[in-house]
């Protein structure tokens, strides 16, 4: 894909190696490298959101310090951040927890392991951009 997406993406995952892998896919989807940010847990993610405008958060759920569900709840409680798009990228399979995420306005979930193309498509869908 060669479309240059004019957006900012935040990758939140406690695994540095997965963050690196996901960032590569986001770049493949057309987001310039300098517009891709990362955080290792929900607290770090909120810190990023306070300093940079983010269009899309790719969110792991099982993380130390502040997990993905706590982060999403915090996000929705903040008037300036409540509309930020969130996609869960996680191994999470618990139906009740995924339903709680849905109630928090998180409509898209990508289960690990995922194919890079699936994440590219999802990013394009959520941001309303057609892949090149």
């Amino acid at each position: 894909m060669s479309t240059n997406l004019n957006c900012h993406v935040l990758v939140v995952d406690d695994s540095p190696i997965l963050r690196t892998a996901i960032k590569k896919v986001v770049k493949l989807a057309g987001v310039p490298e300098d517009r891709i940010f990362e955080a290792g847990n929900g607290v770090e993610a909120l810190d990023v959101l306070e300093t940079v405008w983010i269009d899309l958060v790719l969110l792991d759920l099982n993380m130390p310090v502040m997990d993905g569900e706590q982060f999403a709840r915090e996000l929705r409680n903040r008037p300036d951040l409540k509309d930020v798009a969130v996609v869960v990228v996680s191994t999470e399979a618990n139906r009740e927890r995924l339903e709680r995420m849905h109630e928090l306005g998180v409509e898209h979930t990508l289960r690990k392991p995922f194919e890079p193309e699936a994440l590219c498509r999802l990013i394009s869908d959520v941001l309303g951009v057609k892949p090149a």
Partner: protein
Amino acid sequence: MDTELPALDSNSLARLVVEALERTAFVLADPCEEPEQLPAADTFAQIDFTGPASGTVELRSSRAFARNLAASILGADQTEISDLQSEEALRELANIVGGSVITALGGSDCRFSLGLPRLGQGGATGDDTACILDAEGERLEVHCHRAKAA
């Protein structure tokens, strides 16, 4: 309270792991008929699950497997991979395989939850379903231990 887990046999477990490897890192693996031919396991990672039943998914691999895995995930040369990155890759694979296992056990109404993956020493105990894979000449063992009911 522990209840009977749905069946997860060695072949099903191996399929889950092979798919996880292919999707996550483009690493190819097959069940191994002669595991004694593979290098010994010296790197371990595990993740606990709780819910209708509890247990642990444990990965035991050769150091070289973990290094190959990290290199594949990062798209880097194996010589650039540190021990820390190797361990991190195996820990993340434990997370991913753990997610696949609880999905297989729980189906569409999954009530299992995962803990956080961690490095281990090997030797988690309990009722065991296991598979041994030949991953491009390196060893990857996966054990699914169900905790004994109290």
